[in-house]
């Protein structure tokens, strides 16, 4: 199908974009459009105004800054108009944020990643999308602007349920900051999809590291219906673990907390089984890389 009648404005600056967002209650931001355009074409949504932020110069930036805590770690700051391809193919990103690169490789197809943006995926928070889970696992921070000012949102606070975030209707993400993983940190990103390029049936973004004799981890599961969700029961079980092998009773206990729904392709039970297997594999792989 085709989109419903709408107005299109190409914003020339962030100020311009947030003014348009503030003045029209039914405006939607268009960055890469790889989620919004299918929504418009299928008429799942019919906004009155589409505000194109894809060519705003100040959002077309990829910056590496020194981090503050600890002092040696850097920060990758990705402007809202940077595509997934541009981020994943940057040589410094590839060496220092490998999980981000691995996750982007699983998003759609090359043609989708050539247009789709990192920040757009975070703002959209599709429950089957990779990047919200990566943002939680790596402890990313979103920078949000509106005419009321600017604020930072931690990934832990950002993502609510499916397609819902802490962003207000008049706010836009201008950038996301990914802290540089510490060298002793192990990571794994695994997902199952029915065929390459499909959305994930289930996926796991896992980070583990040793800290003062215990194991700190962030194990984030996605694809099961809600937003990215940490497997806190497993994280607690890993705290004093000597190795990556998890007690099956703990896994079952955690699996009982999952509540996916059947869909046309996969039963809820099958989704849980995928998630269990992926989590076990991801913990083992992250541990090995630690």
């Amino acid at each position, binding site marked *: *199908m*085709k*989109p*419903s*009648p*709408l*107005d*299109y*404005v*190409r914003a020339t600056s962030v100020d311009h974009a947030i003014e348009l967002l503030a003045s029209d209650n039914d405006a939607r931001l*268009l960055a890469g*459009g*790889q989620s919004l*355009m*299918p929504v*418009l*074409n*299928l008429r799942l949504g019919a906004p009155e105004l*589409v505000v*194109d932020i*894809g060519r705003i110069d100040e959002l077309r930036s990829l910056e590496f800054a020194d981090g503050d805590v600890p002092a040696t770690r850097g920060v990758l700051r990705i402007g809202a108009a940077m595509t997934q*391809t541009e981020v994943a193919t940057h040589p410094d990103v590839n060496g220092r944020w490998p999980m981000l690169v691995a996750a982007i490789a*699983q998003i*759609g*197809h*090359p*043609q*989708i990643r*050539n*247009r789709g943006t990192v920040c757009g995926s975070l703002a959209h928070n599709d429950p089957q999308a990779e990047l919200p889970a990566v943002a939680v696992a790596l402890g990313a921070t979103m920078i949000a602007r509106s005419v009321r000012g600017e604020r930072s949102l931690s990934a832990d606070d950002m993502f609510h349920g499916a397609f819902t975030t802490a962003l207000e209707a008049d706010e836009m993400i201008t950038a996301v900051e990914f802290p540089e993983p510490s060298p002793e940190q192990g990571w794994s990103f*695994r*997902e*199952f*999809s*029915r*065929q*390459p*390029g*499909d959305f*994930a049936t289930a996926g796991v973004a896992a980070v583990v590291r040793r800290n003062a004799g215990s194991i700190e981890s962030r194990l984030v599961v996605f694809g099961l219906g809600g937003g990215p969700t940490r497997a806190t029961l497993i994280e607690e079980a890993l705290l004093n673990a000597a190795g990556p092998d998890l007690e099956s009773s703990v896994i079952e206990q955690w699996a009982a907390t999952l509540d996916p729904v059947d869909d046309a392709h996969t039963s809820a039970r099958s989704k849980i089984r995928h998630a269990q297997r*992926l989590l076990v*594999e991801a913990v083992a792989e992250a541990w090995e890389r630690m």
Partner: protein
Amino acid sequence: MTESSNRTTPVRRVSSPPAAESTARHNITVDINGETIEAEVESRLLLTDFLRDRVYLTGTHIGCEQGSCGACTVLLDGLPVRSCLMLAPQVDGRSVRTVEGLAAPDGALSPMQQAFCDHHGLQCGFCTPGFLMTLTSLAERETPVTLNELDHHLDSSFCRCTGYMNIRAAARHALGLAHVEGKPAQGDGT
């Protein structure tokens, strides 16, 4: 497509239907296959429909209109994109290349097109323009293409005549990968 800026060919203005909606229309200038095209377009007009219905370049096909099938793939500033997932006003000032832009002016096929002919890489031809544009972007890239990378690009278009193996053979020849050993990549969904 930067050579277009040096061309002396006149700008071609394509016509638009009378306004039927109260929403804004936009004057856009687009380099399409080396020709500068001017048009007034509705806000909601998809790039696919602009190419087909206004510029009459009907080689870009419409399949799913949700970014899955790949039939509408064109090159935007040299990179393959889904034209069904772009609004025509978005390409103002940019360069678009469609399947009509592949053959030489005298009709000689591009190496990728010729390889599709040589290896029976098309049957009904519906998916072919999308495959050709995606694979042309690989062929014209400076960094070498691996077989694995080729296979992941082949994933990105649907062929319902099930001709993937012939398409793969054509692409391997055109990309200089004909003698590289390797089975088709399996889904890497772990």
